[in-house]
Structures are given as C-alpha cells and as structure tokens.
C-alpha cells in the first residue's frame, strides 16, 4: 500500500477505534443509535458519490438497501461475513441493472426511473409472498454477540466496521483516476468523451459502487433490526438519504457522516419536543410520523438556498475563519 492509501488506512482505523472507545461511554440505546448511524453512513457515503461527484440523482437507494437487507435475511445465518458479502454482491448486480438504464437518462427522467425502483420493493415482496413474507417481512438471526461484550455494543462495532470499510474504499477511489473521471463526466460530458473517458461506462461504474455501499448499509440494517420488512425501505427512506447527503454537504464523505448522524438524531429530537408539548395522543402520533420529513424538507430548501456546501461546507468555512 502506498502513501495516500496508508494515510486513509490510518485515519480510518483511528476514527473507528475512537468510535469503538465511544461505545464504552454510551448506554445501550445510544449505542444502537450509533450503530444505526454507521449503517446509514454506508448508504449516504455511496449516494453522495453518485449525486455530488457524478451528477446522477437516485431516488431508489432505499430499494438498493432493501436488496442487501433481504439477502442477509434469506441466507443461512451461520456466517454473517459471507452473507454480508453476498448482500453487497446482490446490490451490486441490482445497481448494474439500474445503472445501465440510468446512464441513458438525464434529469427528471433519471429521477423518475429511480423513483420507480423504489416502488418495486413492496410489489416484489408482496408478489413473491412465499419467499419474502409480504408486509410482515422476515426475521434475521444474526450470530449472537460474544459473551464478553454487550449486544448493542457488539452491533455498534459491526456497523462501525462496515462504515469504516466503505469510507476507506471510497476515499481511495475518490483520490484515484476513477474519482477524477466521475467528476469530469459530471461537469461536461462532451469534454469528457474528448478526453477519452467513456461516459456511459463511467456513470454505470459510479452507480454500481454507490449501490454496493447501499447494499452494505441495508445488510447492516437487517443485522441491527434482526428483521426486514418492506416498510423500512419505503420511498421515505430514499428521500431521507437524499436529504441527508444534501444537508450534510454534497460530494463530501464527511458530509455523508453528518447526514447519517442527522438521520438518527433528528427524529429523536423531534420526538422529545413533541413529547413535551400538551398534544392529544392522536395528534402526537401523526406529528412524530411526519414531522421529521417536514423538518428535513424545510432544512433541505434552506440549505440549497443559503448554504450550498451543507453542514460540511459551513464547518470548513468556520475552521478557515478561526485560523
């Protein structure tokens, strides 16, 4: 491994170790949240690459997460590492299929097709009821945690490991010719072709890499929740992922991390606010269901208008001002 790779490896290991240390300070619920954020991070990191660096929009990443999650649920639970690898493979294949279609489409047409992909999940799980058990979904029997570590902490470690692998690989790719080619295609397809970059192939590759990350995130979702059902992978999830990467800061892996953290913390924060208000149980229920999406949507509009660089952009500017 070479200098840049070594630096990425060092940073990844340092970050992951710090988070593993953090799991000793958090209670089980917070550890579960940390694990969920790490699982989200796999998917948001992949999505920010696709949208921010390759200029392709996807409203279907929730569905690609589902392919990973269902793969883990359907495979025997004995060797988790193998089923997670299979989940990534299945999502990669699904991503290749969607990616080939996506490479032919631009703008609203691309959004439309990826949106349709999201609708496929409930349709397939209902149609192939015998395999997927419809709305009810499947349970996942992940191997139990070793005796010397609390289950939530163990789950957090697993998710942290998945996120660390994702970030390491993506950081390497972004620094390589592939990252450069993805961005060149995003900026100017004609100039990219003249530079010898095959535009469609480059777009499919970005989609496939992004889908593999989503598949890994989905697989971790299945392991964490110990179950999968179509409702987890609804259009709302796809929208959340999109909002997370924009609010976090498009095209930045750190931004993807902020976004993942927001996805976990924001619903929680809103929950505690609505809990404090004197609302009827009925209204409170409706609010907690929809308020996060509404707040997120509003934040998205504000971010796009006021801080195009997202949270990460704000942070970078703040740090620069302090110096």
């Amino acid at each position: 491994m070479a200098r840049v790779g070594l630096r990425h490896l060092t940073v990844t290991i340092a970050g992951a170790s710090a988070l593993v240390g953090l799991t000793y300070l958090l209670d089980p619920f917070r550890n579960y949240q940390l694990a969920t954020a790490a699982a989200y991070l796999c998917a948001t990191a992949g999505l920010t690459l696709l949208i921010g660096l390759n200029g392709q929009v996807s409203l279907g990443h929730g569905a690609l997460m589902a392919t990973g999650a269902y793969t883990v649920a359907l495979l025997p639970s004995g060797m988790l590492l193998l089923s997670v690898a299979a989940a990534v493979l299945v999502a990669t294949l699904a991503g290749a299929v969607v990616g080939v279609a996506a490479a032919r489409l631009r703008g609203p047409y691309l959004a439309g097709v990826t949106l349709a992909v999201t609708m496929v999940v409930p349709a397939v799980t209902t149609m192939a009821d015998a395999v997927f058990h419809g709305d009810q979904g499947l349970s996942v029997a992940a191997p139990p945690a070793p005796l010397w570590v609390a289950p939530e902490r163990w789950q957090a470690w697993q998710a942290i490991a998945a996120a660390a692998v994702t970030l390491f690989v993506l950081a390497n790719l972004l620094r390589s010719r592939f990252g450069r080619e993805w961005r060149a295609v995003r900026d100017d397809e004609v100039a990219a072709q003249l530079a010898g970059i095959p535009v469609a192939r480059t777009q499919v590759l970005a989609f496939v890499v992004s889908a593999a990350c989503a598949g890994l995130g989905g697989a971790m979702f299945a392991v964490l929740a110990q179950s999968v059902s179509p409702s987890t992978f609804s259009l709302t999830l796809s929208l959340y992922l999109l909002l997370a990467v924009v609010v976090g800061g498009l095209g930045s892996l750190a931004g993807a991390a902020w976004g993942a953290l927001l996805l976990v913390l924001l619903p929680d924060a809103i929950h505690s606010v609505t809990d404090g208000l004197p609302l009827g149980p009925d209204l409170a229920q409706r609010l907690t269901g929809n308020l996060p999406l509404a707040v997120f949507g509003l934040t998205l509009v504000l971010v796009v208008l006021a801080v195009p660089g997202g949270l990460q952009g704000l942070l970078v500017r703040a740090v620069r001002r302090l110096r």
Partner: protein
Amino acid sequence: MERPPSPEPSGPRAGLVLRSVTVRFGGLLALDEVSLHVAPGAVVGVIGPNGAGKTTVFNVICGFVRPAAGWLGLDGAPLTARPHQLAGLGIARTLQGVGLFEGLTVLENVMAGATVSARTPFAAAALALPGSEREERRLRAEALARLDELGVAAHADRMPGTLPYPVRKRVALARALAANPRLLLLDEPAGGLGPEDVAELADLIRGLTCSVMLVEHHMDLVMAVCDELVVLDFGRVIATGTPDAVRDDPVVAEAYLGAEVTA
C-alpha cells in the same frame, strides 16, 4: 513501412481524409460533399463565415455527428470511432469557447486529458495499491510539465472559474496536448485572446510536431501558421490551397473576407 490493403476508393493516404462527407440536420444541409486531407505534420486551416459548418466538420470527425454520406479515414483505415475512442486513436480536440471541467482543478483537468494513458484497474484504485499511486504521480508530473510548457503551471491548483479567460484557453490546450495526439483539432483557439496571446499561440502551433486542424476567424493567425486552407461557405468547400492562393481567390473574398471587411 508496410500498410495493409485499404478499402479507401483511391488508395491509402496517410493522415486524415474526408471524402464527399455530407451532414444533414433535418432540412439543413450542414456539410455538402466536403473533401479534405490533413497530411501528417501539416497544419490545415478551416475558415468560413459563422454557421459555415466548421465545427460540424470537427463533430463528424469526432463521431458526435453521423454523416449522411461520404467516407472518413485515418491513415487509410475507415474512421468510425465513437467520441471517447478518439483519444486512443491519437486525435485530441479543444472545444469552441473553453469547455474545461469547472469542478476540477487546473491540474486535474490536464490529468483528465491523459485518461487514455491511465491504466490503473478498479481494485488497485479501491485499495490504493502502490501501482495506483505511482500512476497518479506520473500523470501529475506530466500534467505539470504540460502546464509549464504553456506558462500556466503557477495556476495548477486553482479552479478554472477563478482564472482569466486567456489562462483558461491555455489550460484547455494543455488538456488536449496531454493525450499526446497525432492530430490536434483546434476550434477557435484564438477566440477572445489579445494580440500578445495570439502571437504566442502562433509560436506554439508552429512548434507542434503533430498534425493540426485549425478552425479560426483570426486571419492573421491562420495566415501565419497554416500550410493549407480549406474555405467553407454554407457547408460547401469553396476553395482550398495555400494561404496566399486562398487570399487572392476572388470567390473567397466575396464569401468570406469581403464579409469580414464590412463587419
């Protein structure tokens, strides 16, 4: 050098050949039986009024536009490459205007221009194996050398949008040269440049060892660097020859030079 028998009608010819190439956009006849030849090492100028079809000639060579009729060849073999395969055949092109990647630094723009020589496989890049980084270092060094040749290496880490127009034009030229082309297609490289920059551009073009096709309105530049001119008007070749011969051609004066004098 031995060359295999060629399908070209009148025997193989080194360099780029267009034979009776016709391009239609709906009802518009953009190129009408255009024939021309760019010999190895030659600098061929393509001139003509706005909308004459100059850029379309480049687009049909590059495979962005399909000819309705006619034959294109490179060194005797039919030229039917898709646009992204051109760099591999040794053809590079600058775009009318600037056409840089606005989200890439100047250095990255030029490195992207050398994609044809990038070999790192996906897995090696994903794991940042030594080979991947070695190649990146090589591409970076070569790109810096290109920028240095064009006198803009100081801007390597800047974003193109923050630079003055003449600097951006040079970066675009550096990006095209990064592919080490045998044939360079330049679409109005002097557009928007001042006299000093044009003079430097002339020196640079004369110093190139590859063949050049030069689309340009700037007549001083064209006259100074071209071995041969092709004059287009309404998609037809109305004159070809040395710059001096073309300048004295009354047909050209009427169609093109006359128009410029009144403009």
